């Protein structure tokens, strides 16, 4: 079991890169501990800004820094970053087109039993609806590293959501296929396509392996690039497989699955089933328990595919 959380990888990459690039600045909202940014904050005090529990100010200040040539990473719980400071993200970052990278930590239902105030199951909808804003949900630590190294090279806004705890590896060290804004083909198949993003890609992969044992050939697409979404990969899957099942840690309207359905409907109609969190407050539990309850884990995905095919 991998013990390195995606947030730890972000800390490590930024720590490394900030030694060479003095314009990198990390900002936290009393969140350096939960963000896994402690060692960065300790080792780069001159490139670290604490704003206190003030998410609106966190994003506004980040935009001001970016307007003066800095490369700010605003790291804060996804729940607050994607809603409390949503207007700053809209106006100061997206509309003003400033080079701010918003890192939503402990995303989705990572906070488990802490409940709906702390869940961020609407962030794809809020952030993805803004012109200029890109939305990424990397699946594992290796892809997180590739993604952060890639966005460090551009000067455009982005929202990146990661979870709280370590997740199983989808890829392996030294073999991490990654092209920015292109879905990663985790496994090819001809009967069904499962399109997943974020930390449920691992479940999609496990489900595909189990389904293979039942004679069902499953393609798995890692749609970490929720926006701009990889339209070509979706249309190709719609034409080449009989069913698409999307899996995401997000509510049912306005998420990645909605986008997939929108694209297939217009270009290559095929049956699309969205596995999501409900349009209702979620049950209490650890994130794995919540996934199981709503059928988002490998077992639930296998069940849906078997029933729908």
């Amino acid at each position: 079991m991998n013990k390195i959380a995606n947030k730890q990888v972000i800390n490590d990459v930024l720590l490394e890169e900030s030694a060479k690039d003095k314009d990198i600045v990390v900002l936290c909202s009393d969140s350096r501990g939960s963000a896994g940014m402690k060692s960065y904050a300790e080792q780069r005090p001159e490139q670290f800004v604490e704003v206190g529990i003030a998410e609106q100010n966190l994003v506004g200040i980040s935009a001001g820094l970016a307007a003066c040539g800095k490369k700010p990473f605003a790291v804060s719980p996804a729940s607050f970053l994607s809603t409390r400071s949503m207007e700053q993200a809209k106006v100061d970052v997206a509309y003003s087109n400033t080079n701010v990278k918003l890192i939503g930590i402990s995303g989705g239902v990572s906070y488990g039993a802490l409940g709906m105030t702390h869940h961020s199951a609407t962030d794809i909808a809020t952030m993805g609806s803004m012109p200029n804003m890109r939305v990424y949900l990397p699946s594992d630590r290796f892809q997180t590293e590739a993604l952060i190294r890639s966005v460090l090279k551009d000067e455009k806004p982005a929202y990146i959501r990661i979870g709280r705890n370590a997740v199983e590896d989808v890829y392996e060290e030294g073999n991490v296929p990654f092209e920015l804004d292109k879905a990663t083909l985790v496994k090819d198949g001809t009967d069904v396509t499962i399109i997943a993003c974020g930390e449920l890609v691992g479940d999609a992969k496990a489900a595909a392996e189990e389904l293979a044992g039942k004679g069902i050939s499953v393609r798995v697409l890692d749609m970490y690039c929720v926006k701009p979404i990889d339209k070509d990969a979706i249309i190709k899957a719609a034409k080449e497989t009989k069913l698409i099942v999307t899996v995401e840690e997000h509510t049912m309207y306005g998420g990645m699955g909605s986008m997939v359905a929108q694209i297939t409907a217009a270009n290559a109609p095929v049956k699309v089933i969205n596995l999501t969190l409900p349009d209702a407050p979620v049950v209490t539990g650890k994130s794995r328990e919540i996934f199981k309850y709503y059928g988002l884990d490998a077992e639930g995905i296998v069940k849906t595919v078997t029933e729908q095919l």
Partner: protein
Amino acid sequence: MNLEAKALDIRKDIIKLIYSAGCGHIGGDLSVTDILVDLYYKQMNVDPNKMDDPNRDRFVLSKGHSVEALYCVLADRGFFDKKELFDTYSKYLSKYIGHPNNKINGVEMNTGSLGHGLSVAVGMAMAGKMDKRDYRVYAVMGDGEMAEGSNWEAITAGAHYGLDNLTAFVDRNRLQISGTTEEVMTADEQEERWAAFGWNVISIPGNNIDAIDNAVELAKHTKGKPTVIIANTTKGCGVSFIENKAAWHHKVPTEAEYQQALKELDERRAQL
């Protein structure tokens, strides 16, 4: 340069721009004009042809609805073509939108939703400190805008980080769209509020260019804390029938009112 004459000329441009476009926030434009004139014609180090100079001073119009005043000043200072502004402002497909937009030369940041500009200015001032540059950052806010809670996050942070390269203005014209600030949401004791948060506070008659200029000079010489200039202004300043009337927040003059406003401004200019 005679800045008082310039301020009257800019006011005439504002009236003309709003009259020809058929829209605009005339009251707040006329209250903030003198602040913009002092900054853009005397105090700020900005060159229309060098807006990529990292050492330039930064300006953020947090009360973005006063955009006509900003556009008239920027056009007059050569940041863009005045004729293009007057021909297209607020019209179909124009780049001159009814709130500041950073695609326009001279505009640093998009504003319009209130309570954003000061946080952005705090970030700009922080960047200056990090890079050891000596540019200064100015933000202009409305007094009605001070009801936005996000401002107080920015005010707290500005003082916490001792951003003495940052100067904020509050355009204290005592009126907002629904009535007086005191009726809508108490805004009095701005001086005490900012001082309690740790800012250097200067309170001035805000349509007096000498007073504005002196206050900006004082701010430049204040170390260890940011400065706020509470500019006690008159909404609609310069045109008798617009002054101190909440109804003129975004009213457009009739032809007779338009002629009367220009006549009054010409008379004031002749008296200088």
